[in-house]
């Protein structure tokens, strides 16, 4: 079957780039929203890209002790079946 490679390249390359763009925009908006609802630490793009966990930049959850909270492996995920 003849393929229009110009169209295919557009669909593939632009499509992949747009998936990234959409999710980057969503990530930035959510980072900003997180800052808005948790004003304890100011939002900055520098924090967004420099901090590893992403949570410290927006968190209002101060862990008092050095020990981390106990981890519950069953948290929120109940069965082995795929949801989707």
């Amino acid at each position, binding site marked *: 079957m003849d393929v229009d490679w110009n169209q295919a390249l557009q669909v593939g390359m632009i499509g992949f780039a*747009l998936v990234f763009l*959409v999710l980057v925009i969503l990530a930035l908006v959510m980072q900003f*929203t997180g800052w808005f609802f948790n004003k304890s630490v100011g939002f900055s793009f520098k924090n967004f890209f420099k901090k590893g966990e992403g*949570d410290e930049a927006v968190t209002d959850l101060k862990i008092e002790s050095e020990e981390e909270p106990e981890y519950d492996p069953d948290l929120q995920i109940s069965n082995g079946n795929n949801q989707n």
Partner: protein
Amino acid sequence: MLFDVLETGLPGITWGAIAMLIGGALLLYLGIVKKMEPLLLVPIGFGVILVNMPFGGLMDTVVDGVLYHYYVVGGEPVGLLSRLFYYGLDWEIIPLFIFLGLGAMTDFGPIIANPKTLLLGAGAQFGVYFAFFAALLLGFSIHEAASIGIIGGADGPTTIYLTNRLAPTFIGSTAVAAYTYMALVPIIQPPIIKLLTSKKERQIYMKPQLREVSRKEKVIFPVIAAIIIILLVPAAAPLIGMFMLGNLLRESGVTERLADTASNAMMNILTVCLGLCVGAFMTAENFLRFESLLVFCLGIVAFAAATAGGILLAKLMNLFIKEKINPMIGAAGVSAVPMAARVVQKIGQEENPQNFLLMQAMGPNIAGVIGTATAAGLFIGMLQ
């Protein structure tokens, strides 16, 4: 003819039908004995058996006055399952309402707590586009290639929705490939993860708990996400709209009954209908083609490339961020919720018993669902 009054199915048995009956039995075996995606593979397998029994008439379609014993796109459905297929899948009702149920079952907390993980969900879409080009090189049309590529997103309803829009004759093979490979995530992903990461990288420690996400944030997320994504990719509106509506029902706190129905009763009913429809499409005439085999081969390529894409993006991100992330969580960017995240958790524990990566991996995992729905919307928007 039995006693000259009853026509049995025996004369209508063909080698193709026998092959499909064996295929249906195999799916039942995988679902019941091996417990691989039983909620889907059992109805699909039984649907395959039902529809390949001669003269059952379940999938009969009439085209220009001629009766066909299998589904013909564009024909008039006259059998029980052909009607279900027509109104459920052709009209796109079932996959979209399944997305509503999925939204009601999904906790966006990990994404909201750590929005960077959305990027890993995008990275895993590499598999979709890699398989898209691979399918084109193998001679598939651009519409078929898009339907095959989306298998890499590891999202059943999205695969079915897109295939129905772009290449309806491939719906059986793409759906079965997607669900089969989703069930095989624990087998497919670990070797790829180990191939692309060093032991040291796999041992990178990440805090097991994410920050606490407020209810306000959880309520506002589906609204904001729907607006942003639909504004940028209007063709993704049906998938993203239903997904986010389902999540809003869950998080709003005032529609518990609706959220409960969407995530339980409705989801179960639709799962039965979807499984039967997909199985029912797999008549010998529709399924036994060389292209189906190629779709299965390309499906696993898509899965592998998606896993690789997520991992490599995570490694790339590590070059720029101070506090390193464990690159294995990128592998969870293929949707398959929560199986892919569980795989990452399991390998993480083996490599570093202090590591609990499950919640960290849930972020990319859920982002993968959003990314795949967005990619599907882009394919539809660009190709229809």
